[in-house]
């Protein structure tokens, strides 16, 4: 069995137009890119657009990635910038919010309502966090990234990441617990 190619190798192959290598990079980082974009935009549709656009921008500017072994960190910088640009554009357009019911498909109606309520609660709680804490808590507790990996990707000391995570969790628990329906819905969902 051959060993999986390193990130640097995948980047070098993608530079030559290797579809499979670029596909592997997309698979490796699509969830993290979405989480980072979501932590900036706070909306599924915007996070999706920003994450997708970021992969294309990254591919077009792949020569600018000075350290191919740290592609992830470089990509996340693009994701953050694209997300901020998107918010700026969106605020100019001031589009209407997409109805909550259209976001989650394939679930039972009561489940959809519960999830929609929890989603709204979480979105509200996440909005109370600084952007950096939102990003860390989503990458760690939703995507399962390790402190070391997050620190490397965000170019922050590992201790700072831990401290941000600690405060983010504290704020989230307080925000979710203070909501009237919060604990009830959370118990049901769990």
């Amino acid at each position, binding site marked *: 069995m051959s060993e999986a190619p390193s990130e640097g190798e995948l980047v070098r192959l*993608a*530079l*030559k*137009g*290797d*579809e499979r290598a*670029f*596909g592997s990079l*997309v*698979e490796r980082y*699509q*969830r993290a890119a*979405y989480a980072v974009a*979501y932590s900036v935009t706070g909306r*599924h549709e915007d996070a*999706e657009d920003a*994450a*997708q656009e970021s*992969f*294309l921008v990254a*591919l*077009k500017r792949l020569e600018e990635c000075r350290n191919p072994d740290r592609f992830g960190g470089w990509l996340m910088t693009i994701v953050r910038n694209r997300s901020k640009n998107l918010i700026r554009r969106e605020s100019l357009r001031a589009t209407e919010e997409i109805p909550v019911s259209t976001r*989650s*498909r*394939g*679930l039972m109606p009561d489940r*959809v309502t519960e*999830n929609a309520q*929890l*989603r709204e609660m*979480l*979105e509200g709680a996440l909005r109370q966090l600084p952007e950096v804490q939102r990003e860390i*808590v*989503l990458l*760690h*507790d*939703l995507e*399962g990234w*390790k*402190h*070391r990996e997050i620190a490397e990707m965000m170019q922050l000391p*590992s201790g700072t990441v*831990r401290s941000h*995570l*600690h405060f983010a*969790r504290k704020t*989230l*628990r307080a925000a*979710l617990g203070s909501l009237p329906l919060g604990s009830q819905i*959370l118990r049901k*969902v*769990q």
Partner: protein
Amino acid sequence: MDWIKRDEARADDLGRDGELAVQLRVLDPSQGDPSYWVRFRNWVMTDASSELARRRLAVELTVEGLLESWSRAVIPVALAAAVATIALMQSPQADDTKVSVAIGVEELLVREIPVETQPVFLSSDVTAGIVAFASDIY
């Protein structure tokens, strides 16, 4: 040694907050749509296909690539030519090969005529005889 590494990793990590992880999962788009990430990847790959194709083409058309493909044809030919030249230079030349020289009429008039091409009656021995003959007559 693995257990040491695992312990170090655990000490380094705060660990995942299970309760919060379950709650946050609501934000994962694949929760209500299991094929979401496969489609996400496909969207990106479809949009990236033209750029990937451009990159493949650029690799084929680089100067280095052109030189490489060129050298593939030129080097064997140059080598063969060099070998042939060396072989020709080293082969023993025939000493008895006669080189015929074509001489034009004007050149013949201007140039000194080699002794051996002069008619026999003009050779020095013969002229001596002629002079002697003339002196006998006059």
